[in-house]
């Protein structure tokens, strides 16, 4: 393996592990979703390096894009529900 290719792989692995670590420990849901999308896109680059181009396409489109948007929406709904409940408690 070429030195540049090796560096690229090490950088990708470090990035994936670092993102996963931060993702697991953050307490901010918005950050978690953004990191999830970044993680998916980095993983997609890793699939490219492993020669699985089809998998890379699927990971980018579904793993990062679609799931990321769904998570975002879910987070928003959760926040609205929590706000409603807080209001009810104040009223009652």
């Amino acid at each position, binding site marked *: 393996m070429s030195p540049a290719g090796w560096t690229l792989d090490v950088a*990708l692995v470090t990035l994936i592990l670092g993102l996963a670590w931060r993702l697991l420990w953050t307490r901010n849901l918005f*950050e978690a979703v953004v990191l999830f999308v970044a993680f998916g896109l980095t993983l997609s680059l890793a699939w490219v390096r492993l020669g699985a181009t089809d998998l890379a396409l699927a990971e980018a489109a579904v793993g990062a894009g679609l799931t990321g948007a769904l998570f975002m929406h879910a987070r*928003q709904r959760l926040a609205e529900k*929590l706000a409603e409940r807080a209001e009810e408690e104040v009223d009652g």
Partner: protein
Amino acid sequence: MAEAYMALAAFLVVNVGAGLWRVARGPTPADRMLAAQLFGSTGVAVLLLLAEAADAPALRDVALVFALLAVVAGIAFVKLGWSQDPLAEDDHAD
């Protein structure tokens, strides 16, 4: 030449890693949304370089998907998930 492309791609991935530090750091959700832009341009550059280095034209299609996806993710962040809510503790810049 392939080795030069590969080296540049490695440099760009390290560059994204440095940029992601800002995404993790915040402080506002808008700062975190910059991740979409970062991956939009840098990810496409990396994929185009790899397509040329590894002689894999299919990677240019992946680059196309990355470009479209960055927009979708960015708009999803703005439209679906960013309004006042009790979940966000550190939303306000000071």
